[in-house]
């Protein structure tokens, strides 16, 4: 139980605004899948169509091989938790969580076992007799989640459930949800605009923007090899460095012009360059390092900003072209503002992108 498939699904509002433009994806039993994107990207419309809260304009959605397009939300066997906790204020934590079981006429002893287990898993056992108004946002959201997770369903839909919480609560609950989901082998679709949350919690991430899917992949795939410049810029903090570069030939030798520096592929440690006159090279700030200018050739720049952040350092290096390259360094690194530096990149981590299509260039 828990197989979900979207086939060419569209959401068109008022006959003209295309919020979701023909997305297809399927996920399987026990998988935690995130819909990640900025506001207005179509992620919430997608979730609401799966839930049955929104009509499917075009295309088909299957849950456990049953087409659900024409099924009421209550008949789809999905459970949902929202950003706003929507707890019953006059019911205790226990009764809030028990509610979906009570309306399904489950025996009291069974309800007790399940509610207590769920409270234990989410660490809210000590609050079972409290009313929602007396609880912190984190405990209220845990209660909302427990209420969604307490009953068996083919699919659990989680809509921005961590967004309202403070940083410490968010980190804690993020870990609790992942643990419960893994231990109970639940299939879940999670909507978030927070790339870190998506990465930490998901088996796979669907990155959306403007109603289309930009990439579907594991957190590692999304981080290591973004399909296009949108994903590259959206995932990771500080984001992926992207530099527009020119391929030039002088005296029969081929160089890459990066800022004011001219470097051969050998000097950059790369096997080859894409066969285009201009393209974008990209690398994560973690894979940028400083070179010893007396020994190696690299990209010349000067220190625009430098920050010591406790257990690591971060610098923004300005190239002569005005481009900024972010780098993450060791805690011991010390740089002065405006100091001249030479940058190098970890060659196997360098990616190339096409300027027109913004897609990653993989065949070089």
């Amino acid at each position: 139980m828990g197989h979900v498939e979207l086939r060419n699904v569209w959401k068109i509002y008022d006959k003209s605004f295309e919020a979701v433009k023909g997305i297809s994806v399927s996920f399987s039993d026990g998988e935690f899948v995130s819909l990640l994107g900025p506001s207005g990207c179509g992620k919430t419309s997608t979730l609401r169509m799966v839930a049955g809260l929104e009509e499917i304009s075009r295309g088909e959605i299957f849950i456990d091989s049953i087409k659900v397009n024409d099924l009421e939300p209550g008949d789809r066997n999905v459970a949902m938790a929202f950003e706003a906790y929507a707890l019953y204020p006059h019911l205790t934590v226990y009764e809030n969580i028990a509610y979906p079981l009570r309306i399904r006429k489950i025996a009291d002893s069974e309800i007790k076992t399940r509610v207590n287990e769920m409270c234990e898993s989410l660490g809210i056992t000590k609050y079972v007799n409290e009313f929602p108004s007396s609880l912190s946002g984190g405990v209220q959201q845990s209660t909302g989640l427990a209420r969604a997770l307490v009953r068996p369903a083919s699919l659990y839909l989680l809509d921005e459930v961590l967004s309202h919480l403070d940083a410490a609560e968010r980190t804690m609950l993020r870990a609790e949800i992942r643990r419960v989901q893994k231990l109970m082998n639940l299939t879940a679709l999670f909507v978030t605009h927070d790339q870190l949350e998506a990465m930490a919690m998901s088996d796979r991430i669907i990155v959306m923007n403007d109603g289309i899917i930009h990439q579907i992949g594991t957190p590692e795939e999304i981080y290591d090899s973004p399909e296009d410049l949108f994903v590259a810029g959206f995932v990771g903090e500080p984001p992926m460095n992207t530099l527009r570069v020119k391929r030039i030939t002088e005296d029969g030798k081929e160089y890459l012009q990066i800022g004011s520096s001219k470097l051969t592929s050998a000097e950059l440690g790369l096997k080859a360059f894409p066969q285009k006159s201009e393209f974008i090279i990209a690398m994560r700030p973690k894979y940028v390092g400083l070179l010893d200018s007396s020994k190696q050739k690299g990209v010349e720049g000067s220190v625009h900003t430098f920050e010591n952040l406790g257990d690591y350092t971060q610098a923004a290096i300005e190239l002569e072209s005005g481009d900024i390259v972010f780098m993450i360094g060791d805690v011991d690194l010390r740089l002065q503002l405006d100091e001249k530096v030479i940058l190098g990149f970890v060659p196997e981590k360098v990616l190339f992108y096409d300027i027109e299509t913004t897609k990653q260039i993989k065949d070089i």
Partner: protein
Amino acid sequence: MAEYLEIKSLSKEYSKATGISDISFSCSEGSFTVILGPSGAGKSTTLNIIAGILQETSGEVLLKSEPLGRVPPQKRRMSMVFEDYALYPTFSVFENIASPLRVRSFSENDIKKKVISIASMLGIEEHLDKLPSQVSGGQKQRTALARCLVRDADFYLLDEPIAHLDAKLRHRMRGEFKRIHRELGKTMIYVSHDYREALALADNLLIFNEGRLEQSGNPQEVFSNPKNTFVATLLGEPPMNLINYQSGSVKNACLILKNGSESTELKGVNFADIEFGRVLLGFRHFSVSIHDQVGSNRIPGFVYVWEPIEDTITYTISIGEDLVKVVTTRSEHFELNQNVYLEMDPKALYLFDAETGNRIGTRV
């Protein structure tokens, strides 16, 4: 030598809420002071008293040894920016920034020069002709900041000036701020609840909690030598790990920690001999490694959850009643609920009294 700006035993009592109690610190000329703490810590109260917007119950503020107590806010040569931008909606960005200069009757030429210079420093020079309603939230905040900084004042008070920007822009502005401070060379006090901002910007870091000054000093020093668990867990992400023990001792560089009949031995620690009751063992995520075998200086636990984050994995390990976080490379993999052993770096441990939260143990 008298300090430039001196805050002496400042207190503010409210009938209900926590005010501030006995706050003392000083700022040398041209320095950057950051007040860091959670909401309700008394950060803004302190800033508002220095500004003269709020009346202190006792204590005083001195500028170049002169008490500011009787000087009304408009006569204090200070400039302030608030979290909500408070821009004039009918004025262009240019006129908003120029407004404090206009009331001081600068020549048109001077005004233009000053506004353009500060606007380009903050990257909003292209928007000078627009109205506040025509620019983004981030640009509004930078306009408010420019209006604050354009004035020539004795000191500048900045209350969470970039808190409303989205994460990516905030991280960029954090670095820019340091450049701006260096260029202007002015005395600034900056309020923040973001520890990275505080570490990155401060010459002098002040940690506030519940109206009290918990610790102050060089940010790296505060990071490496927190006085208590509050400071230790406020700085760092994931925060410092803490494990509870019922009692323990250090003898001949060997730390023994006890929980009931279980005893843990850590050899080669840099503490002087001591005996103690209930204690918290503190360590940062980067000074510990995970193993699947028993060994010396290793503490047993099990994998509570693991989360892939960027090119690392964050493991949450359950040890007794506590959860600790450890960051590893992707090449190490441990399963959910697997028994593991955390190897501690004996020179990177902290001890805190479990009752008071205060640091104990003398380093040798």
